[in-house]
């Protein structure tokens, strides 16, 4: 009886340890498969060709530059929308709104976070893009700008919830000290609370960037899918093509092991590296700010 219990204990402990390490294992496997399928592209297509500006796989042009700039353009546009709106909403929910209202607003933000991106993409096609075409008098409503608007909506919940956490973690005493010196609530927010929460807010922005950059379906549905290198700011109102959308729309039709197949995996590596950098910066910000708080406390 006792012996069997001890065996259960040892067995369960091993299983739990294995589960604990699984994340590292999966991370390694993802990297391995991306590399084995994507790196051969470098042997088949020269590096210069790969970073040229023409993406036309049917004729053997594999320049991923327009795809990278497409992703960047759409992401930056999205952040220009998501950061101000998201941050203001977070400040409002955490610092200004009466608790009852905040209790209603938070689940609403969660609903937005839970909307599948195809749903947003669908609404983008049937409502947003016809509206933009007429309103801005464009030849087509399927543009980088349309994608930015949708991606902004997708990144907003991330920005709100993480900034709000950061604001909530600012000690009450900071706010009380500012108020005691005669600052108004408004001055306290922008002079004390937001600066104190800045590393958390930066994390929120970084994770929002990651979310926008990695988004696939909504972007693929509304950006018009034209892999062109942007030449001016006007390109924002023309069709574009992101890395994610390229993989999603072309992977289904390529032959396994072909040049095109390897290049699509190579784009996957680029995306993986982008997300790695974004997340490492975000997590470093978290770890560093924690370290600072501990130093202050001890």
């Amino acid at each position, binding site marked *: 009886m006792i012996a069997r219990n001890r065996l259960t204990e040892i067995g369960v402990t091993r299983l739990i340890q294995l589960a604990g390490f699984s994340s590292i294992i999966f991370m390694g496997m993802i990297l391995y498969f991306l590399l084995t399928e994507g790196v051969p592209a470098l042997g088949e297509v020269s590096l210069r060709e790969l970073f040229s500006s023409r993406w036309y796989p049917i004729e053997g042009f594999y320049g991923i530059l327009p795809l990278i700039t497409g992703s960047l353009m759409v992401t930056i546009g999205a952040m220009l929308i998501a950061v101000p709106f998201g941050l203001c909403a977070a400040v409002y929910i955490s610092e200004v709104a009466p608790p009852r209202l905040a209790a209603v607003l938070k689940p609403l933000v969660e*609903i937005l976070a839970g909307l599948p991106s195809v749903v947003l993409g669908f609404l983008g096609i049937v409502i947003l893009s016809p509206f933009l075409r007429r309103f801005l008098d464009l030849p087509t409503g399927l543009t980088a700008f349309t994608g930015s608007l949708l991606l902004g909506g997708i990144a907003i919940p991330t920005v709100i919830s993480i900034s709000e956490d950061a604001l909530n973690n600012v000690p009450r005493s900071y706010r009380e000290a500012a108020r005691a010196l005669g600052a108004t609530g408004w001055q306290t927010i922008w002079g004390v609370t937001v600066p104190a929460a800045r590393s958390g807010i930066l994390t929120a922005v970084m994770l929002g960037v990651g979310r926008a950059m990695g988004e696939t379906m909504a972007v693929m549905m509304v950006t018009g899918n034209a892999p062109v290198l942007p030449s001016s700011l006007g390109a924002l109102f023309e069709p574009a093509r992101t890395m994610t959308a390229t993989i999603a729309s072309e992977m289904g039709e390529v032959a396994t092991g072909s040049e095109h197949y390897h290049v699509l995996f190579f784009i996957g590596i680029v995306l993986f590296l982008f997300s790695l950098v974004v997340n490492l910066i975000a997590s470093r910000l978290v770890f560093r700010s924690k370290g600072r708080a501990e130093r202050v406390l001890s």
Partner: protein
Amino acid sequence: MNHNDFNKLYPRRTGLLTPRNMEKAGYAGLTVLTILTVLPIIAVVIYILVQGAPAISPSFIFDMPRDGMRAGGIWPAIVGTIYLTVGTAIFSVPLGIGAAIYLAEYAPDNRVTQMIRIAIINLSGIPSVVYGLFGLGLFVLFLKFGSSILAASLTLSIMTLPVIISTTEEALRAVPHAFRVVSISLGATRWETIRRIVLPQALPGIVTGVILGLERAAGETAPILFTGAAFFLPRLPQSPLDPTMALPYHLFVISTQVPGMPVQIQYGTVLVLLVFVLGMNLIATWIRSRARARRQW
């Protein structure tokens, strides 16, 4: 410096730009921005309800699609999404809860643990379409599962894992440490303590996290594009090795790939997907608030 000097040096601002007025204006501005952020969400949900409701009928739900999906129902897509969600749960729930138990109850505070945490953070940030590539490489091609429910579920599982791990860990850590000390002092082992005290107390939080993770998996399209989603199938999948239709992919197909698609079917599909996903969200929120009210500590 007495108060009079102070007032001379720093005269009170009068007129419109007093700090009070600035505060009022600022708060008003914030309120407007927040309304602008939140209002579209409500509008979208209501709009979909209004547009989609007329399409909903028993035959829309339970029939197979006809006429190149331009008529009939969306039953195979609904069933497929249920299969994928359940399949994802089968793999990700035990693994995710196990990993969270490890991190909350066993992991020493060292470099390896920090590496695990960084791996989880990075897994949560990898674009969903890259998961699709990984699933294609590992499950579909290398393990030869083909484009199938199995391969798609496994892919979605790994994508869902970080959400389940982090919410479960949070729920475990919320259980007071004293319970563990008491249980151990009564001769219970670590695992007995977890099984008899910690897990039951953390259960509502864990269930909430699991549902939120699965909600995300249920609404995803990109990871299943090349691992198991089918454009159209004349019959329901017969085994885990068959490909399947799924609601989000079906919505993508009927809104971009099929010309002359009746708008009503599109909105009906959106509504069903939304009910599916937001229903899960609602259940999770309900479990969480009920558990908070009943908690004994």
